């Protein structure tokens, strides 16, 4: 069900990423202040935007789950958050590399942008133990949805608070009306943002397809394992 259209989507994603990389290294000019280091911007910022939007999308799917009671929305919510956590790891790693190159430190604790993203990331890292601490699948899905909605609402609030805070070293690139970027840089940035967003969508679809296939195998195993009259279970238990 989820696997439909996965192949063209994957091809489009690889093509977009390759084109994005070409724009970054062969089209976008080298920034005068930071030099070549600024090229990390085209990876780090789209990853951060897509990760944060993905957390909010996870919350929106959780609302749909609580409204309809359909477990499909819970799966969408879980996979959205899961993928955004992976993207969050990439944001923290690329950000640290950029910080070391630019400021001489891997991490700056008194910078609101960095610390707030770490707080959001750690908050979502608790989603997994919270979810899997509940055994009953219905309760697990319901409680996870409540978590996803609450945390999803926190993300834009946190973002706004950081924008209002006094930045010490982290730049505010999109603080001005025109974004503060020349045309070629803005075009490259928007293209990279689209490519990373497409990568997120593709990986979410990939994960949903694998989860759906795994679920169907488990259902099939249960159906086949239903003991025939007068006989016991004959196949190995599910591998969890």
């Amino acid at each position: 069900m989820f696997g439909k259209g996965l192949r063209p989507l994957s091809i489009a994603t690889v093509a977009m990423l390759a084109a994005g990389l070409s724009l970054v290294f062969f089209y976008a000019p080298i920034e005068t202040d930071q030099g070549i280091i600024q090229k990390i911007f085209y990876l780090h910022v789209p990853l951060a935007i897509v990760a944060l939007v993905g957390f909010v999308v996870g919350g929106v799917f959780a609302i749909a789950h609580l409204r309809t009671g359909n477990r499909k929305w819970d799966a969408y919510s879980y996979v959205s958050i899961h993928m955004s956590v992976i993207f969050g790891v990439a944001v923290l790693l690329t950000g640290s590399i950029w910080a070391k190159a630019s400021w001489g430190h891997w991490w700056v604790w008194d910078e609101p942008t960095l610390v707030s993203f770490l707080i959001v990331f750690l908050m979502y890292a608790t989603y997994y133990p919270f979810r899997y601490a509940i055994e009953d699948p219905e309760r697990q899905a319901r409680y996870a949805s409540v978590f996803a909605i609450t945390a999803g609402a926190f993300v834009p609030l946190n973002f706004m608070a950081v924008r209002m805070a006094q930045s010490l070293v982290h730049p505010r690139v999109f603080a001005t009306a025109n974004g503060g970027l020349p045309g070629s840089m803005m075009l490259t940035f928007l293209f990279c943002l689209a490519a990373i967003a497409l990568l997120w969508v593709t990986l979410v679809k990939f994960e949903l397809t694998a989860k759906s296939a795994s679920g169907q195998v488990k259902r099939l195993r249960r159906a086949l394992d239903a003991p025939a009259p007068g006989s016991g279970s004959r196949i190995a238990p599910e591998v969890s």
Partner: protein
Amino acid sequence: MHALLASAPALPLGEGGKYVAGAYIVFLVLIVVYVAIMAAKLQRIERELRELASFAEQRKAEEQREEVSADV
């Protein structure tokens, strides 16, 4: 393509270039690790499916044998 490469700025792999390469390699490694984990998961699903298919065939054969012996 040739013209594009000719007009592209040279990538200085000095102090800053190493960090840029590092950031993009970290991203690539993360994606490759994720895809490898997914590939392992899909292999496990495939193996389970094969196991279930052979079990279903075995069960069907047993049922047919039982039907034949009941008729006799």
